[in-house]
């Protein structure tokens, strides 16, 4: 990539970030229906599935391009990554990958996508070329990397290593693990609060959330959750954790790190994401539903039917 192209991409990236952070509620939720073998587009105004795009290989993880027009969906039994055009409602390309591609995240500046191999100790790096993604090397991390979070400047990755009980901090320029932060038992989802300099990771078998201070690279707190916490979303000064076995979302205070309440959602909740309106969307794998939750009142506003086995592990609102 030439310097001028790089600069243009950077400027475009900044514009897109500005657009993405504009205060507007999400219009659509993109659901990975793992057992149904499809990606579903849920219209959040009418609260219905408006489009179903067949994707085989047990689609699970999802990330969106900075302009929110494309979805990158992992297919752990595929294996590989499917690239979808969300406006056209079709699969643009499939990129084969070895191992067990599950967690996925996109560089907010665009151009690069990271995929975690949860049967290995590595991330796959994919870079954009000619409108598609091509494998472009690997980054060594801890055992069973699961969730990936990317800093807003794209320079740092935070990777939850499920079997290693650690979080890897990765410098994307050198593609090296720069430090390792010990956390609780079996961290899975990881969510960044860049402004506050923190990351949160859900310890699946520890039934708690590890709170990390990014500056010192240390765990600074533990929040107890319901059984089998999985993924965390942040909204209005609160954290929200899906508890798979408990069928609930644990809300906690980001300042005190104390739990506020457990809110019943559906069976086996997995992916969770917040929009700028303070609404939370939760994919209930067991019930085949998407719960809509108000982050202030902690009330379930709606329950939307989806295809079989919704997971939406990653960023899925646009």
């Amino acid at each position, binding site marked *: 990539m030439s310097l001028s192209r790089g600069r243009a991409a950077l400027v475009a990236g900044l514009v897109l970030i500005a657009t993405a952070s504009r205060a507007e509620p999400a219009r659509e939720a993109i659901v990975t229906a*793992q*057992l149904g073998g499809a990606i579903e587009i849920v219209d959040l105004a009418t609260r219905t599935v408006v489009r179903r795009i067949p994707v085989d290989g*047990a689609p*699970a993880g999802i990330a969106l391009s900075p302009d929110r027009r494309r979805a990158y969906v992992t297919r*752990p*039994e*595929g*294996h590989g990554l499917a690239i979808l055009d969300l406006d056209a409602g079709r699969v643009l390309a499939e990129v084969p990958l*070895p*191992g*067990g591609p599950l967690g996925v995240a996109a560089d907010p500046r665009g151009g690069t996508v990271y995929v975690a*191999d*949860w*049967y*290995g*100790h590595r991330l796959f790096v994919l870079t954009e070329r000619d409108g598609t993604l091509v494998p472009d090397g690997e980054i060594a991390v801890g*055992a*069973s990397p699961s969730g990936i979070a990317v800093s807003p400047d794209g320079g740092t990755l935070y990777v939850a290593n499920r*079997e290693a009980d650690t979080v890897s901090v990765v410098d994307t320029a050198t593609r090296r693990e720069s430090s390792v932060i010990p956390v609780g038992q*079996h961290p899975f989802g990881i969510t960044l609060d860049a402004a506050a300099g923190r990351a949160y990771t859900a310890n699946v*078998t520890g039934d708690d959330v590890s709170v990390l201070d990014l500056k010192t690279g240390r765990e600074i707190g533990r929040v107890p959750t319901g*059984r089998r916490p999985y993924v965390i979303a942040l909204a209005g000064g609160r954290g929200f954790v899906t508890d*798979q*076995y*408990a*069928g609930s979302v644990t809300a906690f205070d980001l300042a005190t790190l104390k739990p506020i309440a457990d809110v019943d959602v559906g*069976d*086996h909740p997995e992916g969770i994401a917040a929009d700028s309106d303070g609404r939370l969307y939760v994919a209930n*794998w*067991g019930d085949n539903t998407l719960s809509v939750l108000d982050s202030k009142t902690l009330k379930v506003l709606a329950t939307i039917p989806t295809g079989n*086995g919704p997971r939406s592990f990653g960023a899925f609102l646009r």
Partner: protein
Amino acid sequence: MKKITLALAATAALVAATAQAHGPTRRKITESIEINAPADKVWAVLGDMKNSDWMQNVTKTELNGDPAGKFKRVLTLKNGDQIQETSNKYKPDDKLFSYYIDKVDVKDLPANDYSATITVEPEGNAKSKVEWKAAFYRGYMNNDPPPDLNDEASEKGVGDWIKASLANLKAKVEKGS
């Protein structure tokens, strides 16, 4: 979890070697049965945490803890093996019991990380419907499962066990009413 950790480590090695195999995806099954008895009578049997002899092959139930709070159970099977369970939700008002299995031999139940929710819904005054939803990974957590522990065989094994248990429950409740 040690077993799973080892399985995963082995899997990682296998994937590195073959790069072709694939790993398990959690399965789910739902079974239900109609019982010719009011929901209260069904719950009186189903909700009795001290005695689950209606569950297929279960000969003895040991309850540790208070059903109103968190509790553990050990179910002894006909062959002497045991299933260790932990309660998740026990709500008599909703006639709902959910639990997960901490430990079971896959030859007794071909599943890993099994969790389930069982509910009783009234269907009129004299009938009820019992629904049993289970979620689990197949019996073999590694790649390239043997035929008896692959996704299909595990779904069938767990499904048959649930169906037999529900039939036993129906027989026990209807006989007693």
